[in-house]
């Protein structure tokens, strides 16, 4: 790719970026959110047209008008969100778009399975072609995606944040697969912001920032520190969390159960507790009951049974405002689904939950001057980049709106904070900032329940860690005992052999 430039309106997404890729090479592209990595790959895969610049494959000038053109030139892409037909089998998914036929019109299921087995043998990937995709764990589903690309004879494979949804063990498998494919002569582009993985597999690393190519280095000549410096443009301080004595109990959950209206047992007798001055992490692959646990604690859904004591007071079945009023703040796991309204302006987003406090309303009338002052204060204190108070939430970048939500919740000054995926999809700078704020709550004697699917986040912040699996806790660790291997094993439902 030579001198690729892409303009979205006045936004320069890619600024004169060039890129080369050799046969059998693994190239990693790293950069913060909005650095232009995805845009560049979309151009290569024919999803977007560059404003200027050219693409050469095997020295031949190519002009991709759609992904079909790119696929024909041997380019395949594994998207972050899988595009699979869940009720269908692995084999059916893989051959989709180029199905083997019998008598020209009928789909040949047996032959499809045969092709897939052959494919697996060739690339050393194991999978049962007859398995239904919905019964496969996430790691296998990703393997199906990779096989799909291989089936279409891709020579260049683009992997977009492939490890984001995987457990540590699955990540190891994936990295092995990537190395194996490269050894067989495939060229691979890996987009990620996890630098450890980059150092594990990549041959060459390209760093992007603000749409520009900042640097290109060989793996052997660089280090994680250098890469993160290049990505962010400044040195990141290593985080040191001082040990702190925990105080009296803030949250106590006993035997909490929740059965969904569809009669699914989602929580099966959960017991956890959080004390003053401690951050308690809950690790787990998403979908193991964490969301329901949070919603039970915050009063958004009513649990089926059990006890939730907040500061000694039973809050089960209490409405959300009452739970919040008795001292709970909540950073929600999904900022657009729950944390704000896209079409609300910044003031309206910032004041939610505060609006019934006497400082901001009296007898049902809002004190608009105070509210605007409060919002302005939040925006400056938490460095939320904005142009005016009447801007809509959807006009802010994801990281900035997340900072505003964190600001809103922490500024309640409540003793107990539920932080669910507090840094999902935000860049390193914002992530650091949010982590600092959460630690601040702790050092002021507050209690934090941190739920995250990002293991590094759990490991670096938590004083104590629970692992959730299948609707219950599957192990508890102190900071010293926990390692990502142990957690990963328990997250998959395994047991530790003492």
């Amino acid at each position: 790719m030579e001198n690729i430039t892409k303009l979205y309106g006045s936004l320069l997404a890619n600024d004169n970026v060039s890129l080369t890729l050799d046969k059998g090479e693994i190239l990693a592209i790293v950069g913060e959110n909005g650095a232009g990595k995805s845009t560049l790959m979309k151009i290569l895969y024919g999803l977007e047209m560059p404003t200027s610049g050219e693409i050469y494959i095997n020295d031949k000038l190519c002009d991709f008008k759609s992904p079909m053109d790119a696929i024909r030139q041997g380019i395949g892409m594994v998207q972050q969100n899988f595009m699979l037909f869940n009720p269908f089998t692995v084999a059916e998914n893989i051959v989709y778009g180029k199905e083997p036929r019998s008598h020209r019109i009928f789909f040949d299921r047996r032959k499809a399975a045969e092709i897939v087995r052959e494919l697996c043998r060739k690339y050393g990937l194991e999978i049962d072609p007859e398995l239904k995709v919905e019964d496969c764990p996430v790691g296998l589903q990703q393997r199906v995606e990779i096989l799909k690309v291989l089936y279409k004879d891709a020579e260049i494979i683009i992997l977009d944040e492939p490890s984001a949804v995987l457990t540590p063990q699955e990540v190891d498998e994936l990295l092995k697969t990537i190395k194996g494919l490269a050894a067989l002569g495939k060229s691979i582009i890996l987009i990620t912001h996890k630098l450890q993985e980059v150092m594990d597999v990549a041959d060459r690393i390209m760093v992007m920032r603000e749409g520009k190519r900042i640097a290109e280095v060989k793996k052997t000549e660089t280090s994680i520190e250098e890469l993160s410096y290049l990505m962010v443009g400044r040195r990141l301080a290593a985080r040191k969390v001082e040990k702190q004595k925990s105080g009296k109990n803030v949250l106590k959950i006993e035997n909490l159960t929740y059965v969904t209206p569809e009669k699914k047992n989602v929580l099966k007798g959960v017991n956890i507790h959080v004390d003053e001055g401690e951050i308690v992490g809950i690790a787990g692959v998403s979908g193991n009951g964490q969301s329901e646990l949070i919603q039970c604690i915050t009063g958004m859904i009513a649990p089926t049974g059990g006890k939730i004591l907040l500061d000694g007071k039973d809050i089960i079945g209490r409405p959300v405002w009452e739970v919040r009023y008795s001292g709970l703040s909540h950073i929600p796991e999904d900022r657009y689904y729950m944390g704000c309204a896209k079409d609300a302006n910044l003031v309206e987003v910032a004041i939610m939950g505060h609006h019934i406090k006497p400082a901001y309303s009296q007898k049902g009338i809002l004190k608009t001057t105070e509210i605007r002052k409060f919002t302005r204060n939040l925006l400056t204190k938490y460095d939320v980049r904005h142009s005016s108070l009447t801007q809509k939430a959807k006009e802010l970048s994801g990281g900035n709106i997340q900072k505003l939500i964190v600001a809103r919740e922490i500024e309640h000054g409540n003793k107990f904070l539920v932080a669910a995926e507090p840094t999902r999809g935000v860049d390193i700078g914002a992530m650091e900032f949010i982590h600092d704020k959460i630690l601040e709550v702790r050092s002021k004697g507050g209690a934090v329940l941190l739920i995250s699917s990002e293991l590094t986040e759990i490991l670096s912040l938590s004083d104590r860690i629970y692992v959730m699996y299948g609707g219950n806790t599957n192990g508890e660790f102190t900071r010293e005992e926990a390692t990502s291997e142990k957690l990963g094993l328990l997250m998959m439902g395994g047991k530790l052999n003492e």
Partner: protein
Amino acid sequence: MNNDTQKSFIKICLKAWNALKQPIIATVFGLLIGAVLILTTGENPINIYNQMFRKSFLEPYYLMQTLTRATPVIICAIATAAAWRAGNINIGVEGQMIIGSFTATACALYLSGPPIFVLTVSILLGMMAGALYSTIAAALNLRFGTSIVICTLMMNYIANYIASYFVNFPLKDPHGDPIAAQTAVIDKSLHFLKLSSRSTLNIGFLIAVGITLLFIFISQRTVFGYESKMTGLNPVFAHYGGVNQRQVTLKTMALSGAIAAVAGICEIFGVKYRYIDSMFVSGGYAWTGLMAALIANLDPVGMFFASTFLAGLQVGGQSIQRTSNIPYQMATVIQSCITLFVSVKLTFDFIKWKRHAKTGADKEAD
């Protein structure tokens, strides 16, 4: 003018244009389609439009007609918006208007006492009846999950037939035309004050202005207004933030019904002085109000002007019928076309928004 004020002036103009361009473009298209239809009747559209708008907006007598007609339309638009902004699509404004104003009329006919007392009690009872009537739909929705849209729509018919029964039997005017299904005329002391001796324009119009202002205050300055707006924009966000959504649904629907009742009360106490069978159905006030609310995208000031414009279109259409061979229905056609073009824009926005949400999610994943 110095440079800075000039800049801010341009900024304000741009903002105004951005807010107004959608209804203006829709109006232009609506009028163009109307023009084509007028051409087919052999008349000159420019001529017809000229007559139509000159009359309904520039001649004092017709302007007052326009404002009289606009009164219930404005109030109906506000009633629609009061529920809609919280995500409750109340298309039963007509039914609430009938129940509310019919209750008020019945009270005015049978209560005795000082006029100001009777008038106040009648209006309050009428508003309560309208509120209760719309709350039925809200309660059914909360209890059984029925659709508010469908319930309120069906309840329009129920309301009209209930009132129809009363004006045909127990409350039928004993002195008037024996075929006319209508109540007796309410006492003269209860009539709304007229603003001009020459026309029907009365203080009902000032009430409409007052309700618009009150609605602006409620929606921008109160906790209730804030909570209902957030519920409308994202119910999950509101729930998460501690908003009691059952209460918001009940309150917004009740408010909507009460305002709808006022629309009917203004028309009866200010213009007709009696309830006539199906008077609000044939008048189409509620639906015109709904169109105005859609055209103005629920903005209170916008709804005020959109309602007045649509009322003017109807008054102009009536007057044109007398002087040319353009039927009155032309006004309805133009009005519907405008609404149609506005909703085309809304649908388009929705599709764009969905597409944007998708690419937004992609960007997020970057």
